[in-house]
């Protein structure tokens, strides 16, 4: 004979609404719920760390951009000051170029005068804004323009270029007005070389 161990007989007043336990497979539901919470927490932590790093990076970039902008600004202002200095230097150079002694020019003009010609009036004006140019006003006591050609040749020989020449002949006097500009031989060479 075989008698198996049976469940204990219970004499307690039975509750009618006792529910059987849910199937074991459904344990996946709370397990997945807890897993999703854990994953959410992990991902949130990762995102928070990433966000913190990104903010830190952005701040670093901002500060780098600021410092670079400041450097650029400083370079610009330095450039501006350098350009100002260059302009000033150029002005000085022009001034120096324009303020060469005019005595050789005057001497050349005087020596160019022939026996029948004389200088009535010689005027040399130099503009402060454009000191490289010399405005010359020459009145020669002569009856022909031949003397003027000789004088202009002498002036050209002194490396001056003439611009806007005007001449008026009347009553035995020749009134000649011209703008002179000293010709820099080195510069001329530089300009001529590409041609």
């Amino acid at each position, binding site marked *: *004979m075989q008698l198996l*161990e049976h469940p*204990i*007989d219970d*004499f307690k007043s039975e509750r009618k609404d006792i529910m059987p*336990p849910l199937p074991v497979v459904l344990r996946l539901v709370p397990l997945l719920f807890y897993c999703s919470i854990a994953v959410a927490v992990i991902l949130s932590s990762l995102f928070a760390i990433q966000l913190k790093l990104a903010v830190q990076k952005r701040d670093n970039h901002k500060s780098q951009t600021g410092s670079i902008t400041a450097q650029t600004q400083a370079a610009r202002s330095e450039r501006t000051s350098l350009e100002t200095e260059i302009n000033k230097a150029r002005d000085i150079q022009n001034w120096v170029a324009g303020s060469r002694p005019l005595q050789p020019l005057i001497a050349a003009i005087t020596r160019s005068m022939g026996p029948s010609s004389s200088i009535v009036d010689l005027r040399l004006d130099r503009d402060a804004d454009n000191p490289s140019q010399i405005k010359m006003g020459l009145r020669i006591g002569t009856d022909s323009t031949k003397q003027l050609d000789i004088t202009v040749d002498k002036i050209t020989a002194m490396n001056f270029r003439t611009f806007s020449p005007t001449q008026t002949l009347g009553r035995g006097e020749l009134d000649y007005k011209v703008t002179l500009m000293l010709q820099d031989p080195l510069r001329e060479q530089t300009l001529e070389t590409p041609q």
Partner: protein
Amino acid sequence: MNAIDLKSILNFSAFRPEPDDPSASWKKRFPSEKTVFFGIGRAALSWRGIGRGSHLGEVELVRADPKEILAQSSEHIKPLAEQGWCSISLNTRYVISLETNLSRRTGSEDMLKSNPRSVLGGRYERGKRYALTHNPETNSSILLTFDEDQTRKTEGLFTEAGFRVGRICCGAYELLKHALAETNTKKGSENPVSNFYIICCEGAVCALVQDQDRWVELRSRTDVYEDDPTPITDLLAPFHSRLGPEIGITLACDEPVAGLTDRLATVFQGRTVSDLSKPALLANLMLQN
């Protein structure tokens, strides 16, 4: 689905049997919760805490009216059970008898609870609760009859004391079933078993004579003994002359009774005494089943 259902799913309690689900074992109902086992005699109350992980605590026994003991000691016992759940072995006001020709139709076990008259026929009495163990080889059955009033009173008593009753059983009957299951292990009638079963639980004694697989005689008495085993042997001594010479003795006690095996060997001279008793045997049975 309300918040409580949702909570029960999230804390996995919905996947365990309900605490008062009689179809589930105690261990499955409370896998990680402290509970308490009570043993009730007519004038004695014992209790034992069951810790988390089903660890059995030490048993405490007080001999007095259980109602008074509960009133005085409930505050001391309550911390042993977290939610107040307890299992009760009621060892008084019951009858274990040997019956024949009871219905064994499919579902008769469930019918015994809902409509016992259909199973028991003329043996049915109003106001009683029943449990049955059938002999698979013969038409005899062991019938446990409990007084419904007594179980209700017991439930009320423990509820008033602040406990939640998860189970009420008869310790002696469960020990008898255990002893039968331990000794009758081979299918069929080729190896018939003869035994004289002696069950002792909380002062109650039950004796069953099994001769060649047939259940011949059954005696059950409550409140027989306290500490001294003499009343047990005095009660059982008359069986000696009625037992066949080949019948051995199988003893099962809820807790080992000091000196009982020796006394039985003296009274039942020439018979082997097989002692199934172990410390906390009934508590272990209640826990595992």
